[in-house]
C-alpha cells in the first residue's frame, strides 16, 4: 500500500519519556485517521492489569467496567482470534464471525450497544510479551481505505515502545533457576528419563532426581508437567528450545 508512512510518529515515540506520553500520541494519531475509539493492549483484565501489561485504552468507560466485572477477557472473541492469527481482521467479516460461539457473538453485540460497533483488530505478537492486540473503532465519518495500513504500523510501534518503557521501569528479577536446572527441564521436555539425562549431562541419575525435586520445591509444584508449564510461563526456557 502506498500510504505515506508517518515517520514523525516513530520519532515522537522514540522521544516519549513515559507510557502516558506514548498513549497520548497514539490516541491522537488514530483519531486523526478517523477512528473514534482505540484499545492497544495486552489481553488482560483492563482494570486490574498484571505487571508488564500494555494498556493503551480509550474505550467508553461503562464498557470497560462491564468487561472487567464480567471477566470477559477469558471469552472475548477478539482476543481469541487475535491469538491465533497474525493478520488484521474486521469485526463485520463473516470469516471472523463464523468460528465464534454464541456467547462470544453476544459479547460483540453488547460491545456494539456500548458504541463499539464496527472496527477491526490488529493482532500483536511480540516475543516475551503477553498476548496483545490493537482494536480500532471506525468513527461516524468512516476511514480512508489506506488508513488500516497506517494504523497497523502505529499499533505495533506504540505497543513495542510501551513495552520497552515498562521493561526499563520494571525491577529486574534474578533468574530463579540455575543453568543445570534449566538443562534438566529441557531434557525432560524432550522426553528423556533421569538415567538418560544423567548420561547426557555427565552426572548421576540420583543427582538428576534431586535437581528435579529442588526445582519443584522452588516452584511449589507437585508434578513434572506442572514444573514444565511454570518454566515455560516464566520464560526460563523457550518452547523453541524443546520442540523442533
Amino acid at each position, binding site marked *: 500500500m502506498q500510504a505515506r508512512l508517518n515517520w514523525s510518529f516513530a520519532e515522537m515515540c522514540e522521544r516519549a519519556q513515559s507510557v502516558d506520553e506514548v498513549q497520548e500520541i497514539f490516541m491522537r494519531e488514530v483519531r486523526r485517521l478517523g477512528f473514534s475509539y482505540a484499545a492497544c493492549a495486552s489481553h488482560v483484565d483492563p482494570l486490574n492489569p498484571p505487571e508488564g501489561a500494555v494498556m493503551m485504552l480509550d474505550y467508553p468507560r461503562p464498557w470497560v467496567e462491564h468487561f472487567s466485572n464480567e471477566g470477559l477477557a477469558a471469552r472475548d472473541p477478539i482476543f481469541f482470534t487475535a491469538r491465533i492469527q497474525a493478520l488484521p481482521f474486521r469485526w463485520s467479516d463473516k470469516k471472523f464471525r463464523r468460528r465464534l460461539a454464541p456467547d462470544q457473538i453476544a459479547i460483540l453485540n453488547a460491545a456494539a450497544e456500548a458504541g463499539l460497533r464496527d472496527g477491526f483488530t490488529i493482532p500483536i505478537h511480540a516475543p516475551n510479551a503477553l498476548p496483545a492486540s490493537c482494536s480500532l473503532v471506525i468513527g461516524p465519518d*468512516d476511514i480512508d481505505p489506506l488508513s488500516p495500513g497506517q494504523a497497523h504500523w502505529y499499533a505495533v510501534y506504540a505497543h513495542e515502545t510501551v513495552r520497552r518503557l515498562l521493561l526499563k521501569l520494571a525491577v529486574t528479577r534474578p533468574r530463579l533457576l540455575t543453568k543445570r536446572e534449566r538443562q534438566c527441564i529441557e531434557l525432560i521436555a524432550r522426553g528423556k528419563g533421569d538415567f538418560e539425562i544423567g548420561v547426557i549431562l555427565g552426572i548421576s541419575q540420583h543427582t538428576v532426581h534431586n535437581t528435579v525435586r529442588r526445582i519443584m520445591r522452588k516452584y511449589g509444584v507437585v508434578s513434572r508437567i506442572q514444573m514444565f508449564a511454570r518454566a515455560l510461563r516464566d520464560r526460563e526456557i523457550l518452547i523453541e528450545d524443546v520442540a523442533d
Partner: protein
Amino acid sequence: MIHIVTAENRHLFRHALMEMHVQRKRVFIDELGWRLNDEMGIEIDSYDAEDVVYLIEADDARAAVTASARLLPTVRPHLLNEVFSCLCEEPPPSGPRVWEATRFCPAPGTPRGPARHELLLRMIGAIMETGLLFGIERITYVASAALAPLAEGAGWSVAPLGAEKRVGREKLRAYVADIDSSGLKRVREALGATAPLTRFTPGALARAA
C-alpha cells in the same frame, strides 16, 4: 454524478472510497475470480495510493456507489509496464500527459446488457472530462474481449497496442485512447448528455464551508 476523487479531496470521500474497495473485492475476486489480494473484505493493491485519481459514481459522498474506476499516472510503475507488458508490442505510452485507466467496476448486481453498457459509456465520458481537466492527452487501458468492442465504439479514437492474448481465463488486449474535446462531444452525444458527467469538489473549500 461521477465524482473526481484526488489527494486534495479524498478526505471527503472516505465512505465512497471504502465502498469502492468493498465492491472491487466482490466483483473482481468473488465474481470474476481474479487472483487478487483481499484484506479485511476489501480489494486494495500496491497501485492504490493517496495521489491516484478515482472516479466514483454516486449521488453524493455518502450515497450508494454505482460504479468506479481508477486512473494511474504512468510516470511511475503501473499495470501496463509491470503486469501486462506482454500485451504491448512496444513499450506502452507513458509520461506526464498519459494516464492508465484500471479497475472499471460496476456495482455488484448491476444488470448485464444496456444498463452496464451505458455505465461504461458514462465512465469513459468521465475519464475524458477528467483528462481534459488535468491536461491529459492519452489514456491507456486493458480490456477483455467482452468489454473491448464497447470501449472501442464509445466515440473516442482508440488504437490497440498489441495483439489480443489469453491471460488466465480471459482474452485481453491493451489500447490507447486520445483525450480531446471532439471525442468527448461524441461520447456525450451517444449518451444524450448535455451537462458535465463529472463533479470535482475542492477539498479546502468544502472544509471552509
